[in-house]
């Protein structure tokens, strides 16, 4: 099963490597991974999407908690949360297709963020399913390049807030 884990970690060199090393060393999968500073510059948030049965997910969470620099691990799949991902899609946009592409971008509430004589670059945001649906549609045209951010997520409750003393 797919699980989205939200990790609060100390913002220090090598921490990401400890996390990814744990996954590769123990044979766990990473589907996507997103890292950036939080409002507290000493703390970063890693949002990580992984897959596994119940026992593997439990082991992943325990092993992550064992890392000294990992402050908190929350499994967002167990609680209500919001998930978003962004993709930039560069697509060949010839005159005959431009209108149709724009219509679809509009339906998916995306944006064209760059236009060149041959290409559109489209920005689209949503959960992974929405992105995949859009990408599938765009395959009817010619996709040149895609960059996806991977999932970021937050729980709707207070679960991943840090109490600082």
């Amino acid at each position, binding site marked *: 099963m797919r699980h989205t884990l939200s990790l609060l*970690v*100390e913002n220090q*060199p*090598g921490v990401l*490597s*400890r996390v990814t*090393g*744990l996954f590769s*060393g123990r044979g766990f999968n990473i589907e996507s991974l997103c890292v950036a500073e939080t409002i507290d510059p000493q703390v970063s948030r890693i949002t990580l999407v992984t897959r596994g049965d119940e*026992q593997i997910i*439990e*082991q992943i969470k*325990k*092993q992550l*908690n*064992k*890392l*000294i*620099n*990992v*402050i*908190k691990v929350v499994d967002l799949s167990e609680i209500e949360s919001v998930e978003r991902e962004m993709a930039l899609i560069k697509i060949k946009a010839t005159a005959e297709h431009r209108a149709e592409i724009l219509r679809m971008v509009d339906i998916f509430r995306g944006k064209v963020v760059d236009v060149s004589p041959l290409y559109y670059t489209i920005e689209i945001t949503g959960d992974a399913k929405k992105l995949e649906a859009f990408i599938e549609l765009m395959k009817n045209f010619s996709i040149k390049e895609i960059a996806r951010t991977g999932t970021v997520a937050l729980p709707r409750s207070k679960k991943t807030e840090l109490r600082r003393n």
Partner: protein
Amino acid sequence: MKLTGAQIVIESLLKEKVDVVFGLPGGAIIDVYDMLYDSPIRHILVRHEQGAVHMADGYARATGKVGVAMVTSGPGATNTVTGIATAYMDSIPLVVITGQVPTKLIGNDAFQEVDIVGITRPCTKHNYLVKDVNELARIIKEAFHIARTGRPGPVLIDLPKDIQQTKADFVYPDEVKLPGYKPTYHANLRQIKKAAQLLARAKRPVIYAGGGVIYSQGASEELTKMAESFYLPVTNTLMGLGSFPGNHPLWLGMLGMHGTYTANMAISCCDVMLAVGARFDDRVTGKLDEFAPEAKIIHIDIDPSSISKNVRVDVPIVGDCYDALKKLFKALQNTEENIDWKEKHHEWLTQIEEWSREHALAYEQPPDGPIKPQFVVEKLYELTGGEAIVATEVGQNQMWAAQYYKFKRPRTLLTSGGLGTMGYGFPAAIGAQVAFPNKLVLDIAGDGSIQMNIQELATAVGNRLPVKVAILNNGYLGMVRQWQQLFYHRRYSQTSLEYSPDFVKVAEAYGAVGLRATKPQEVEDVIKKALSINAPVFMDFIIEPEENVYPMVPAGAPITKMLLGGTVLV
């Protein structure tokens, strides 16, 4: 007061009450060695950095204190990796300090540069690269704290040369602030109550005790008290040997691949298993889905990730073994029904006795035949009164030592259980001898393993550390040969060690004493003589070349499927 980084290292080690460091200097750690020159800290100069880490490990296992090793950058650092991984697998508290090239050169492929923090990330509990001398004291404080608390483990500090030379104010912090590190010591009482209820209803209970019982101060006494009060039979993992008296009537012997028939049968037939400070290693469980099929499992461990990792557990208890066992004892005393525990377990204990009678550990020593290794270990046990600290190498020697030396107390067996490091025993024995100069320290070795760190003879002789090494010399990499004999149609691919040195002469060349026994009648005399000499001794026992370790469970088979020297039991 401003001190250089090198001085801060020494002052911090003194604050941590470090009395000995094992190591070998080099260009990138020379500044710390310069400060060591005038310090009261004892230094044991090794001949290979792997030896330094194993010595620190042996010191730590024998004393319970944090072992410290110090080496230079590059090859000095990489040579420590096997020792660090050994300590990591067996949860041994170490602090390893490695020199590093100056910060400006890091990443430039400088002379003797290696990314040791990157290399050791998966085999340390934590590691540090010091980038600012102002953080050095805090890092050392944290390193010792992390190494010795929770589930212990090795911590590495990589210390660039310019940091050693830069000055900073020295204030050793009183406490550590680690928001992501809070080990659970206190066992949850609700879980303890559940465990007690299971045990109160059990008809065929077994305690399966591992190394955690040894590392948790006082847990071994609690375990013994609990077993005796409630008539609970106990089996030990290799790492747990010594946590329960090896000559106790409730002791079943070691379990697992080379466990006793009794222990493996008992664990397979039990209805409630109390696992404490053990981690269900594959060498213990054999085939997982046939391991203890009828058992409800209670698992006490300080490391939550050890619980339900390999085997699903019914009552998980996270906490320190001592704390949990103490609480469980009270809970068992206060069970609602008035239980006659002796009567309740009578039938089960009778069954266990029967198993022990049917298939006790056995070997035959023909009076005129070649020496049997089991006979040597039994004689060692007898002539040392079972009072020695015993290190082992890895392989057949390790298993015979585990089976035939009946360990009575915690911290008397030093063995590489998790990683299975050949070459571990001799330096570990030296480390233990440093900690206990007046105790008898033995290394039970094979002719293969002893050659993997034989250079440390110089360290033993030079520091007057009278370690006694019993080499069970069969001319083979014996355990691999045994597998080849049993599972690879006797195709002895690269397991014969025909060109080994004369170990007596090797010992003598280093200034130690070498003795040899080739007949069973000579064994006792050689041991007696070795024990009477106050110097390192190599005892070369020329043993039956193709003797096997039995019982043996083939890898991946259920543990009831034991080979007992020819017969297969199902």
